[in-house]
């Protein structure tokens, strides 16, 4: 947990859950595992607020609890999960991906589950059906069965998964979910069970949900009450209590990674090659674990059969494309054998490393110019170079090369390696070599990204606070306008209310909205870089 990560987590918690949860969350992140009393005392918060905040954090998976260090009798300890909190930044991307894959229904399902942390299937289906019905025209409503089918598709492709069972605490071992097989009581020292350890992780419960979404009308209060009572009764009769579903972030990350690889191939080679790679990745979706270095080998015959029908290329041309992909210096695709017309794999780890390298190079280019980028790329390729060699290989005059190297050195993007010729390390008799280490540099840039996003959020909060008065005024006027329009007022009244905001104020509001939109949009973009770097660093850890 670096300082930048904690700061960013604090801001994200504050924006989404309020200041109390932010205080508790940052305290947990900084201090490690603590029990309830310690948290309450050290943060000077009343006990019931602490309890509420911890409930919220656990509900959203940002905090885990387990029995204390001193054995099963000690009080429960809570541990915050920094990574999970940082995921909040990526929520819009998850929701948008669900929309592209499964339409509006999928989008709403994922959005609801993300908002509430975890939900039962019946609850999700009802809420989503109601929301869809609300947006439809009068007289039409959404069938539950359609929502159920979208939900099951999400579960089948592993985008949604069941929440892991609660770790056994105390001596009595009682399973909370009816469908899980009896797990042996886990001792306190092992890690908390992950979702994947549950074999029924992706099994849909046997629930029949029949009904349609209810449209919420403001005038039909009595009907709403009756409908509400009916809904309550229906919830009780559904057979899936205790089976909660959460979003499977790793699956989404796999999808993003595949997308990144495919688009890289498309921009480096051409559309057809990217289609081939896309086919290969799709075929190995469920057979590849997330930490695999490369996909399972696929024979050229299989690939030929699984190509999408609108890409009718002949067999020899497919072979040519495959050999092109294998020979490409980017090494996206590798050949692992010759049976079945050639066995090919997608080098996931290599691809991620190359994508991260491209990100680093692009960062250096944008910040320091193309000549510094040339030096940087040179050092990445040639590993260790002396000053003189750098000047020669990069074809840059000595003085400027020196200047650029020192700038890069001061930014810690380039390191100096000393190789002494004599045991006394005399400076005049030592080689000083410049080098770039990809992994530490990637980590450094990742921390910069976190700092950037935190700065963006703070600036946005500052701008909102500065113009709070104006924003509140405009909100009030909008509310008045809406109520006037609903009750059918004349146009003169509407224009009169609209004129309550003066023209310079309107301009100020416009400028403010523009700034805030820009800052928000920038956060989304920085998050894409964060994803690439995080994936690369994670893939190197599990070697």
């Amino acid at each position, binding site marked *: 947990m670096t300082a930048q990560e904690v700061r960013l987590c604090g801001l994200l918690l504050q924006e989404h*859950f309020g200041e109390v949860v932010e205080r508790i969350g940052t305290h947990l992140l900084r201090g490690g595992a603590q029990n309830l009393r310690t948290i309450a005392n050290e943060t000077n918060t009343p006990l019931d607020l602490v309890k509420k905040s911890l409930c919220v954090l656990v509900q959203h998976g940002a905090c885990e609890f387990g029995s204390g260090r001193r054995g099963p009798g000690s009080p429960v300890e809570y541990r915050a999960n920094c990574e999970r909190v940082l995921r909040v930044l990526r929520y819009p991307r998850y929701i948008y991906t669900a929309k592209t894959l499964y339409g509006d229904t999928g989008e709403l399902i994922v959005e609801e589950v993300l908002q509430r942390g975890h939900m039962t299937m019946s609850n999700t289906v009802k809420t989503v059906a109601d929301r869809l019905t609300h947006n439809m025209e009068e007289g039409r409503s959404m069938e539950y069965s359609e929502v159920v089918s979208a939900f099951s598709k999400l579960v089948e492709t592993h985008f949604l998964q069941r929440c892991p069972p609660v770790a056994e605490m105390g001596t009595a071992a009682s399973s909370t979910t009816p469908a899980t097989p009896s797990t042996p009581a886990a001792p306190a020292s092992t890690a908390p069970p992950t979702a994947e350890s549950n074999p029924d992780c992706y099994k849909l419960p046997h629930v029949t949900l029949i009904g349609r979404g209810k449209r919420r009308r403001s005038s039909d209060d009595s009907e709403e009450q009756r409908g509400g009572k009916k809904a309550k009764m229906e919830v009780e009769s559904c057979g899936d209590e205790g089976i909660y579903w959460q979003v499977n972030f790793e699956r989404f990350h796999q999808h993003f990674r595949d997308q990144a690889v495919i688009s890289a191939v498309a921009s480096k080679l051409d559309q057809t090659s990217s289609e081939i790679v896309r086919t290969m990745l799709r075929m190995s979706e469920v057979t590849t674990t997330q930490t695999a270095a490369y996909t399972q080998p696929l024979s050229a015959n299989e690939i030929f059969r699984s190509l999408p029908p609108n890409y009718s290329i002949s067999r020899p041309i497919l072979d040519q494309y495959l050999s092109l992909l294998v020979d490409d210096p980017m090494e996206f695709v590798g050949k692992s054998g010759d049976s079945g017309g050639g066995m090919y794999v997608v080098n996931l780890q290599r691809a991620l490393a190359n994508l991260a390298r491209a990100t680093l190079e692009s960062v250096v280019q944008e910040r320091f110019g193309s000549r510094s980028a040339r030096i940087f790329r040179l050092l990445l390729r040639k590993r260790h170079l002396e000053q003189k060699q750098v000047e020669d290989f990069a074809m840059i005059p000595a003085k400027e090369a020196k200047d650029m190297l020192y700038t890069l050195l001061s930014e810690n993007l380039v390191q100096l390696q000393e190789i002494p010729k004599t045991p006394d390390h005399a400076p005049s008799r030592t080689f000083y070599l410049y080098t770039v280490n990809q992994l530490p540099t990637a980590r450094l840039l990742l921390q910069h990204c976190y700092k950037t996003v935190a700065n963006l959020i703070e600036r946005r909060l500052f701008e909102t606070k500065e113009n709070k008065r104006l924003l509140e005024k405009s909100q009030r006027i909008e509310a008045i306008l809406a109520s006037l329009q609903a009750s059918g007022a004349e146009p003169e009244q509407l224009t009169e209310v609209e004129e309550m905001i003066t023209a310079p104020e309107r301009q100020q509001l416009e400028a403010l909205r523009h700034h805030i939109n820009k800052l928000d949009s*920038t956060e989304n973009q920085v998050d894409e870089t964060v994803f690439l770097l995080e994936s690369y660093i994670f893939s190197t850890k599990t070697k």
Partner: protein
Amino acid sequence: MAGLGRGRGRGKGYMSFSIEAVGIGKGENLPPSILQPTPLFPPMEHKPVPLVMGEEAEYMLALKQEFRGNMKTLPFYVRQAVSKKDWKRLPKELRIRVKKPLKENTSLSVDTPVDPKPSKKTRVDKEEIIHKLEVGITLEKKEEEVTSDEEEGEKKKQEEEQQDGEEEYDEEEFEEETDYIMSYFDNGEEFGGDSDDNMDEAIY
């Protein structure tokens, strides 16, 4: 032992390695040394790349803002509850202030030049002493007080729900129309008399 730089080297800029190895030639102008922290927003030589603005980006932006707004309405957004005052914990004297404007108003509405004395018998010792002093003041001042107190009383009735601390301040200031607050005239007799329960503490 290796000798100190001062003794062995000559002239300024003696360093433990030869400067030529690093690449700075003799007599070359070095960049000026930095005397103050770098500016907060240094001018950038290379402007950042413009944002990607497309349909996808705008949709994600809308999603993000909507999500944030929705989170604020959900029960997961924990707000700090406003703490209400526990009247049992504040000293008695602050509570009685609430009764005073009521009594004053009723007595004044009878429209007699009220002697403030009887209405204040219910007060604690401190107020008795203060009003003994008040009684010593001339009649005209008393009438002024009454009128000002009347206004005060009406104002206070409106502001009854507000914190008593403010009222206490107003009353103390306005009562005698002096520049000093009432505790200035305090002769210290009742100091420490309120806390009878803990006689172990030394009273300085």
